[in-house]
């Protein structure tokens, strides 16, 4: 409610209130205003709330509140003293708890760390065991493969183990005399192509006295054969160049011959055309002088039927320079365009044709 009503307004308020509540008095209104002011003060509400709580919780009436308050204050002091001791104990206990919790956490962390390390070591060991197993298997496979390869090689070389042992002994023997097996093999290869190497060697020594001279003689022969070979190669190249030139000339001559043959055929064709059509040139010039030409034929069915048996009795064919209406032979109007001349001239059937002669 607004507490700033004037005196007159307050009277109005009370009068209006009495319409619904005839017993409403000014005292009630003032009480309300006072209550409003007090409600605005939070301390008042707290005090009233405290008294209500005191009565509700302790059963102490409002009139005994002061004595009770003193007693409660004394109890409060005593309790505060006890509370301080308890608080110190609580603090000490809390510190001890914190320390224990810290140790416990540290221990847990160490255990966790050790567990993780153990797991890592186990995993490492398992991995290495697997690798070792795989390595063993692989080594076993390779050993078997090597044995198989050795067996195959022996089989392929057709040697036995005894022969290999003998070869080893032979090698040792050769090396003990200052030679090697490779040198011996080369010497063998040197004399292999000669069926009678010993005799050939003795004859050569007899002819040339020394091996060096014999070798020089062989080199000289080889050189003279090489010179002859080079000369023959040069001769062969020169001949090849001449053959290429002749081949080209032949191609040119063949081209000229083909052209001449074509000209001859064309001239022959022209001669034939001339002989065949020279006689009708007047007719052609006459037709070319027409403005238009229509090729027509009579389609009289009787003539068509007769034409089957006698070609001269077939329907008449005729050329006109104007569109015709009647057959000049039978006088009937059954005319159609003659397709053959149009097809021969490659001209649309029925279109008027203007004959154009060349120069």
């Amino acid at each position, binding site marked *: 409610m607004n507490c700033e009503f004037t005196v007159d307004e307050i009277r109005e308020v009370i009068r209006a209130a009495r*319409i619904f509540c005839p017993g409403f008095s000014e005292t009630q209104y003032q009480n309300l205003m006072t209550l409003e002011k007090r409600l605005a003060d939070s301390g008042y509400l707290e005090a009233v709330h405290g008294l209500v709580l005191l009565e509700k919780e302790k059963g102490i009436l409002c009139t005994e509140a002061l004595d009770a308050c003193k007693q409660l204050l004394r109890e409060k002091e005593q309790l505060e003293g006890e509370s301080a001791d308890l608080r110190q104990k609580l603090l000490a206990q809390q510190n001890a708890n914190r320390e224990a919790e810290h140790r416990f956490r540290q221990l847990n962390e160490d255990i966790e760390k050790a567990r993780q390390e153990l797991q890592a070591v186990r995993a490492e060991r398992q991995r290495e065991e697997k690798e070792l197993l795989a390595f063993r298997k692989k080594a076993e496979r390779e050993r078997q493969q090597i044995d198989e390869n050795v067996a195959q090689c022996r089989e392929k070389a057709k040697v036995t183990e005894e022969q290999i042992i003998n070869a080893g002994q032979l090698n040792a023997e050769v090396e003990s005399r200052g030679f090697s097996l490779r040198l011996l093999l080369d010497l063998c290869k040197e004399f292999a192509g000669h069926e009678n190497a010993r005799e050939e060697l003795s004859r050569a020594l007899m002819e040339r006295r020394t091996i060096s001279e014999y070798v020089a003689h062989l080199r000289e022969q080889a050189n003279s054969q090489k010179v002859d070979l080079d000369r023959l190669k040069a001769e062969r190249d020169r001949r090849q160049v001449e053959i290429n030139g002749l081949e080209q000339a032949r191609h040119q001559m063949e081209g000229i011959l083909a052209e001449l043959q074509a000209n001859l055929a064309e001239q022959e064709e022209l001669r034939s055309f001339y002989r065949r059509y020279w006689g009708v040139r007047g007719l052609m010039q006459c037709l070319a002088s027409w403005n238009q030409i229509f090729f027509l034929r009579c389609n009289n069915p009787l003539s068509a039927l007769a034409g089957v048996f006698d070609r001269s009795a077939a329907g008449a064919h005729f050329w006109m320079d104007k569109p015709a209406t009647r057959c000049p032979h039978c006088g009937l109007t059954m005319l159609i365009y003659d397709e053959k001349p149009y097809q021969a001239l490659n001209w649309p059937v029925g279109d008027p044709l203007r004959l154009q002669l060349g120069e």
Partner: protein
Amino acid sequence: MKILQGKRAANFQQAAALAFQEAGVADISAGVTDLLVSLADATKLRIEAEKSIGAAIRDKYSAKPRWQSKWWCIPVPILTYEARDIPQLKIETKTYLVAVVDVETTDESYSVTVIGAMGKPETLVIPMVFLHAILNDDLGRFGILAKSGSHTTWEVLGAKAVQLPNDFVNKLTEIFKRKSVSMWLSDFGRQGGSVAPLVVGSLLGLQFQGTAQPIPLAQQPCTPEKLVAALEAMAYATQEAWEMVRRASPDLRAEHTLEEGLRMVLQHAAKGE
């Protein structure tokens, strides 16, 4: 519609201040309009506003005017307290149009402000018992006679059925959670202040109706009806009783008790004889 030169309003606050000034209630708080805005139909308002602006502009500028406008409809309330049958608060609301208009004629261009009341006023009648129920958030004690999306009609004993917009009731309920009734009425300016004691008194009466000590009839406030009833009980005819009360009325005061008033009426009757 009145046409003022220049643009006098740029926002709703300024438009509301202009409308209140035009209506002669310049001390009303603009926030009051929020409560009353739901009274009118928005579509109807828009059509009417555009029509009014067009009519005013065409009336003022004859040279083929073309215009663009921005407008606001401001509800302006008039408060009345009545205690004839049952104490009640009446809120009569007129809608004022405030429009800032840019006009272009064939020769010139103008900026003007169109202002004026439009449409019929709307009246809300709120019996005090109803207001008390809103204050206590206890509308459930009234029976609902009719309800629509926008309005509800309640049955109030001893008064006509109360029809109010739902939006208005909801907003008023919210306002009373934050403000006292006298604070709310102070938003209506001087007119709110003048009816505040009566409204607050009525509400106090209703609040203490069941708790205050009953007072004897003789000590109850004096009203003409009670005086006539008392005289009738004293074997005066009704017409005669009303005549006696009328004669004594110059000396009767509203604060008189029934006993005092009766004594005064009888004294006047004795003098008259």
